[in-house]
């Protein structure tokens, strides 16, 4: 249908949908006065039973750990999907950078950017691992730290030229790291069954709450997830960069 008919048709159905939203949301408890036994139990047991001070990580990696397993494989599948979709098919010239605009010299990276990027590189990696490792103590965890870690190769790209990034962050190596991170989650779950518990049951000694080794297997899952997420995001960004950056290379 034409654009105008579609907009009119949409506005009518959007009004009806707004009515549905109103009916649905009017039945909700007033903002701030909701109550959930589930939440109260989790807040009560996350430190005494699991020595995990961050209740959200307790829910994410222990009580509802199977959801996070599904979530990690969503990321794993979409990274595979992006690599598959952006692969170079037969009818494309392999190196398509010979047709870049003639006479337009790509400006070299200014020294200021290069220095700052280099200065920032090491702290970013340390900060990323700090967030990953302290997942069960303070806000953060495998996912957030992983994304911060995936910004490290970009800093490298900022301060150098593209081959350095490809050299330092070889896609082949990262793909293996990412797959190992994802598989690691299942291996830990299987190990729990081998140790005599149910899948993903926290059987390891729980350590002292608030320390890095607290929470039994949660730190290990965090490491696996951090490895996978940092690998996954770096791959996605490299795939986007790689196609783009032939020009800058030469």
């Amino acid at each position, binding site marked *: 249908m034409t654009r105008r008919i*579609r907009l009119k048709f949409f506005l009518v159905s959007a009004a009806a949908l707004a009515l549905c939203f109103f009916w649905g949301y009017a039945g909700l408890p007033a903002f*701030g*006065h909701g109550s959930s036994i589930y939440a109260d139990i989790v*807040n009560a047991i996350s430190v005494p039973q699991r020595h995990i001070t*961050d209740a959200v990580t307790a*829910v994410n990696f222990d009580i509802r750990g199977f959801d996070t397993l599904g979530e990690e494989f969503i990321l794993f599948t*979409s990274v595979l999907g992006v690599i598959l979709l952006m692969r170079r098919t037969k009818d494309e010239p392999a190196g398509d950078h010979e047709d870049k605009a003639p006479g337009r010299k790509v400006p070299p990276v200014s020294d200021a950017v290069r220095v700052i990027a280099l200065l920032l590189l090491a702290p970013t990696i340390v900060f990323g691992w700090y967030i990953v490792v302290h997942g069960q103590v303070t806000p953060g*965890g495998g996912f957030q730290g992983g994304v911060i870690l995936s910004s490290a190769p970009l800093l490298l790209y900022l301060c150098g030229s593209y081959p350095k990034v490809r050299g330092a962050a070889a896609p082949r190596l990262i793909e293996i790291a990412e797959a190992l991170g994802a598989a690691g989650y299942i291996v830990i779950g299987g190990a729990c069954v081998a140790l005599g518990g149910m899948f993903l049951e926290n059987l390891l000694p729980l350590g002292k709450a608030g320390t890095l080794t607290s929470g039994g297997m949660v730190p290990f899952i965090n490491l696996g997830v951090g490895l996978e997420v940092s690998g996954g995001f770096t791959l996605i960004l490299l795939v986007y960069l790689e196609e783009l950056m032939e020009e800058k290379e030469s």
Partner: protein
Amino acid sequence: MSYLPYAVAAWLFLVGLYGVISSRNLVHLIICVGVIQSSSYVLLLAIGYRTGAAAPIFVDIPVGTPAVDPVVQALMLTDVVVEVTVVALLLALAIQVHKRHGTLNPDELRKLKG
């Protein structure tokens, strides 16, 4: 104030849908899908909030203090991951559509008529 967050959630959903319907550029359409997703953040957040409650991090506060709902925050974390992955896939599709069709305007993509 007691129903403002829910109204904002409903508004974001409808605005995002309008953006998807009326979009003339696939990348703009994908970002509008991201706006629809953010309406579910606002809804889940409003459901989990308790007035006068602290964050569910018991590092410096004793365990018994009233805290916000951690289960909803775990759902939102999964939601953020889902958003990033879906947008990454959709952007890859949009790039390939542009490479094959030369245009990003859904009106001109008449490939699958009928």
